């Protein structure tokens, strides 16, 4: 769909835990042509220190109810303003931005790996993959059990695997230490989103085992539509803007 800028009304602001909010906005005249992995740039009002918009992956869409969903972690002043929005208030949103994930071929075995708030785009991705493949594995990593959100929803999308750094849920350790990697070569595709060191580790495993892998980058950006040239990442064809050439990249195109 064409990029648009709209004031969207916040229908629901659900506090999933002290840090994470699920925000559901109404999109009048909803155009369902939004791809998993695309993002939106949301205004962070009411403060001189949050001058720029904040980019967020689209967590989910509901075309029937004309809503768009974001999973937002409170990390700084910008995300605090946005997650403090009251139901019924409206905020300016520029969307949908960037290119989404490439969907698998029929019946391929796929692994979705999310770390921290990088789990956000994987919900919509898993829903988009389900018509093609029943063999979806979702591996979520967090610091501690209390940081994991929407586990029921993710477990409905595929087989759920968990790691926590303190061992309070799932296997103890980092995402890439999970036992699922013992048989990683069974997977046709790996999709990942999360902190860059985690994605680099996942990409390393994928490349070593010759597995197709896409990563979603979250470089700092100003505009979100390709004019400020601030969010570049080094690719084999030179610096490319994450907002327009990404945020999803095949690892083979990156200089990782």
């Amino acid at each position: 769909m064409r990029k648009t800028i709209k004031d969207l009304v916040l229908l629901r602001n659900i506090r999933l835990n002290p840090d994470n909010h699920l925000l559901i906005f109404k999109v009048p005249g909803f155009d369902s042509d939004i791809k998993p992995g695309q993002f939106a740039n949301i205004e962070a009002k009411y403060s001189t220190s949050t001058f720029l918009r904040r980019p967020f992956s689209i967590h989910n869409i509901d075309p029937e109810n004309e809503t768009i969903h974001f999973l937002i972690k409170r990390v700084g002043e910008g995300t605090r303003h946005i997650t403090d929005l009251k139901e019924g208030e409206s905020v300016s949103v520029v969307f949908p931005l960037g290119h989404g994930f490439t969907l698998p071929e029929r019946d391929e075995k796929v692994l979705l790996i999310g770390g921290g708030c990088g789990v956000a785009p994987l919900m919509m991705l898993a829903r988009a993959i389900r018509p093609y493949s029943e063999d979806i594995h979702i591996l979520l990593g967090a610091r501690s059990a209390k940081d994991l959100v929407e586990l029921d929803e993710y477990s409905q999308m595929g087989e759920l695997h968990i790691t926590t750094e303190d061992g309070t849920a799932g296997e103890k350790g980092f995402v890439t230490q999970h036992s699922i990697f013992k048989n990683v070569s069974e997977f046709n595709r790996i999709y990942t989103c999360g902190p860059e060191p985690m994605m680099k580790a996942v990409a390393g495993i994928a490349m070593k085992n010759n597995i197709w892998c896409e990563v979603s980058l979250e470089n700092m950006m100003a505009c979100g539509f390709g004019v400020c040239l601030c969010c570049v990442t080094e690719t084999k064809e030179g610096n490319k803007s994450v907002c327009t050439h990404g945020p999803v990249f095949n690892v083979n195109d990156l200089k990782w």
Partner: protein
Amino acid sequence: MVDLAVKIDKLNLKNPVMTASGTCGFGEEFSDFIDLNRLGGFIVKGTTLNPRQGNPYPRMAETASGMLNAVGLQNGGVEHFIHDIYPRICDYKTNILVNVSGSTVEDYVRVAEKLNDLEHIPGIELNISCPNVKEGGMAFGTSCTSAETVVNAVRKAYNKTLVVKLSPNVTDITEIARAVEAAGADSVSLINTLLGMAINAEKRRPVLSTVTGGLSGPCVKAIALRMVWQVSKAVKIPIIGLGGIMNASDAIEFLLAGATAIQVGTANFIDPQITIKIIDGIEDYMIRHNIKDIRELIGGLQM
């Protein structure tokens, strides 16, 4: 009906609102959001003789009411512009100017020569004020002699409208403005970004890969307004004012300070439709104040 049209040298602008180089790509990036033909003009991203990869990431930092950037003139080079971009954008019914940057006088001249032949590019904006490249750029714009030398050389090679973009990182901007006017500039645009810096205290490291970068946004507006006002007293050529313009009221302030036209820069990142809102807002202001011709506002500051 109010008349919004202004003139910069031979360029007829249907209204005084343009977009600033480096904040509007090649214009076409805005086509989902606005009708580009409504703009008085737009300035294409800084173009150099050879392709440039720009500076390493991170290239931006948010500041109080603004941002720092250190893009470093990433662009595909002038040949790429002429062959791959120009054919796509040349039909827009607005003034398309190319921002020209270089490391040597010879670079500037060669780029200007190549652009001189493009029918639908009625002018260039000479960037002697980029703070984010090691050689050239701002170095040319911070001394009268070097500014004069590069403008003189380009003037000989380029016979359409020559706008020179001035750096605010100088002791007295009016001296530079006078020097480039004497060297043959048809107009000056000001200000480019102010040299600034951001530090991450937790990591004890600079935020930008280049340590310093160019500050823009509403935090620079007061300085920009002051400089436009000073330069308007110093030169006879028309001024294009920019620096932190976020709304119609800001734009009108620049006109009152002496600018004939204005450019909207950083505000485009936050609201890609802001230019149209500013054009409409200027029109509303004129109706409200019973002003028929926008030229009544230019330099119309009442002391």
